[in-house]
């Protein structure tokens, strides 16, 4: 049994991640500091009572960019300006990890495709505003069967053309399933490319977008080196996977369309979620392998309290999410389950997972003290310090709240200090106080 456990993908990735073998450390002291932080994070998720409270950042975003007076627009186009700001922020604040590229993606990737699922700073929004996703009905109510029948064909010839005007010509390609042998399908496929300049333009747009991503990936390596190799900060964000319900509601049908489907075609929805499940599981596992990173993050959107009843959550949301989480855990991976919105009534579901496998993020709407009660001995919790509190309250108020969190939620381990969502407008003195409370508690 012991041997089998050591062979698991997750255990190998945890050992590699904690050792920091992917980084070039600037000194042995930095290496030791990195390893101690990474080990503390893993042990805390494993519910060991370490006597310390790690402090992690959900995503600092504008708070970090302000250290370099960098706008969101610049951060999406001039990556090293953003990196310089992150370095200054992390030098000034004593976090135990960093989250990744802060969800600030390369503008060029979207702009080359005129990607209509996002609104970009400097294009549709003021320069100093975060980009925002557009949730729309990219899949029509009557397309479930088409999708279930041949998902890749639907993605290539229906979904991508709707997301990008530059990819619209892909809709004119013949279905790839027709291309089986030379005399069946191949001539149609190649003629579509030869006779339709739009198809060639679409490929050019993909190439242009890809070049922006290449540049960005190189920059991600520099972030890891600077923040990991020099400042001894482990990166929390590795691979991602999505709850099947959220894929349908966020990316395909929109929230309104999804709700109508819950009432009018529930069986089709469930069939699609079951179809999505193994792909998401594999996507998470493959991503973890490719990145050499043991934490798979699952951001949760539409299952929060109030967004649906408990009965609806149990019927539509939780079954495929649970299978996804269990599948990742079964590989020995750690899962960062990032709940968004108030999650009080759903917390008990996480006790259905093996203990010490997940890190449950809580936004400020969730009652962290209730979460501790429900999840003690089951899963590690983190987060909850309100972004509004950090932006608008006094240092004393922040300290009072964080002390309570540290004393109640930190008791016995299984807790990390973190804020609710983006730090953005938080006051530096408030953020520093939040960090100081966690460190002070850990040393006492």
């Amino acid at each position: 049994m012991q041997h089998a456990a050591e062979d698991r993908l997750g255990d190998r990735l945890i050992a590699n991640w904690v050792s920091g073998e992917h980084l070039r450390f600037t000194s042995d002291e930095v290496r030791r500091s990195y390893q101690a932080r990474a080990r503390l994070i893993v042990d805390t998720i494993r519910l060991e009572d370490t006597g310390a409270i790690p402090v992690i950042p959900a995503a600092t975003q504008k708070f970090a960019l302000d250290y370099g007076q960098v706008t969101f627009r610049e951060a999406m186009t001039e990556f090293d300006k953003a990196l310089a700001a992150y370095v200054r922020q992390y030098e000034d604040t004593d976090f135990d990890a960093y989250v990744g590229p802060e969800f600030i993606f390369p503008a060029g990737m979207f702009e080359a495709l005129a990607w209509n699922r996002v609104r970009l700073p400097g294009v549709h929004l003021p320069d100093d505003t975060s980009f925002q996703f557009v949730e729309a009905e990219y899949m029509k109510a009557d397309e479930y069967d088409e999708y279930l029948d041949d998902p890749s064909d639907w993605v290539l010839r229906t979904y991508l053309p709707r997301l990008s005007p530059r990819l619209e010509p892909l809709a004119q390609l013949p279905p790839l399933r027709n291309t089986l042998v030379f005399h069946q399908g191949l001539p149609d496929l190649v003629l579509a490319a030869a006779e339709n300049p739009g198809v060639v333009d679409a490929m050019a747009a993909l190439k242009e977008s890809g070049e922006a991503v290449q540049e960005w990936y190189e920059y991600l390596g520099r972030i890891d080196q600077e923040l990991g190799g020099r400042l001894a900060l482990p990166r929390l964000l590795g691979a991602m996977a999505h709850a099947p319900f959220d894929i349908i509601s966020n990316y395909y049908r929109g929230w309104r369309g999804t709700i109508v489907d819950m009432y009018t075609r529930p069986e089709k929805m469930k069939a699609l979620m079951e179809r999505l499940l193994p792909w998401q599981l594999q996507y998470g596992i493959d991503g973890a392998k490719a990145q050499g990173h043991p934490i798979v993050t699952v951001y949760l959107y539409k299952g929060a309290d109030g967004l649906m009843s408990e009965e609806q959550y149990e019927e539509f949301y939780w079954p495929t999410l649970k299978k996804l989480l269990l599948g990742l855990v079964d590989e020995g991976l750690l899962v960062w389950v990032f709940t968004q919105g108030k999650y009080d009534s759903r917390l008990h579901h996480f006790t259905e997972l093996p203990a010490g496998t997940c890190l449950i993020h809580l936004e400020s709407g969730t009652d962290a003290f209730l979460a501790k009660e429900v999840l003690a001995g089951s899963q590690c919790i983190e987060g909850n310090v309100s972004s509004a509190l950090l932006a608008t309250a006094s240092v004393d108020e922040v300290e009072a709240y964080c002390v309570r969190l540290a004393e109640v939620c930190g008791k016995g381990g299984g807790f990390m200090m973190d804020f609710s969502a983006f730090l953005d407008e938080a006051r530096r003195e408030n953020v520093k106080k939040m960090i100081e409370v966690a460190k002070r508690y850990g040393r006492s």
Partner: protein
Amino acid sequence: MPQELTDAIVSLRIDDAVTLAARMLAAGTDPLEIIAESTEAMQVIGRRFADGEAFIPELIMGGEIMKSISQEVLPEGGGPGTEGPKGTVVIGTVHGDIHDIGKDIVVLMLGTGGFTVHDLGTDVPAQDFVAAIEEHDAGIVALSGLLTLAFDAMRSTVDGIVAAGLRDRVKIMVGGAAVDENVRVYTGADGWGNDVSRALKLAGEWTDGGA
């Protein structure tokens, strides 16, 4: 038949509700009466929501049924045609923020709760709020925003309303998942909410109090 229509809407059977509404219309029922019946059914859903017995899917599905019934029984381009007796609300998601789910539900709840609602959409600049307050003689302004970055835009919108000399004429609420009392103070608003049912309660309190 009106009771049947109410039951169909409250139990969210969209096909039955639309069929019943069409049958009532064919039998000579005044379209506005059908809309009034439907609105009452929506109020039942709204009350259940406020009591924690119904959730956002019920509200949105109810709204979809209302929309389908309106399309079925009203001439093209015709709205319900009733002025909300309780007062006029100007609502929008503030500049720089394009989130609309919460705002749309608040619009629905205020509309079925007896208010006339002018929805300015998302990413709305302060001057558009000012113009809409003047144009519609609104007594209540609702500023929505999901992002913490929206707090600044909420504050500058309130500042814009002050600069236009309209602050004494309106009550202002700020709403969104991250909004709390600190944000209310920061933005200079009169009330706040972080769930959609709070907006209707606040608007009710303000109008009953003669604001």
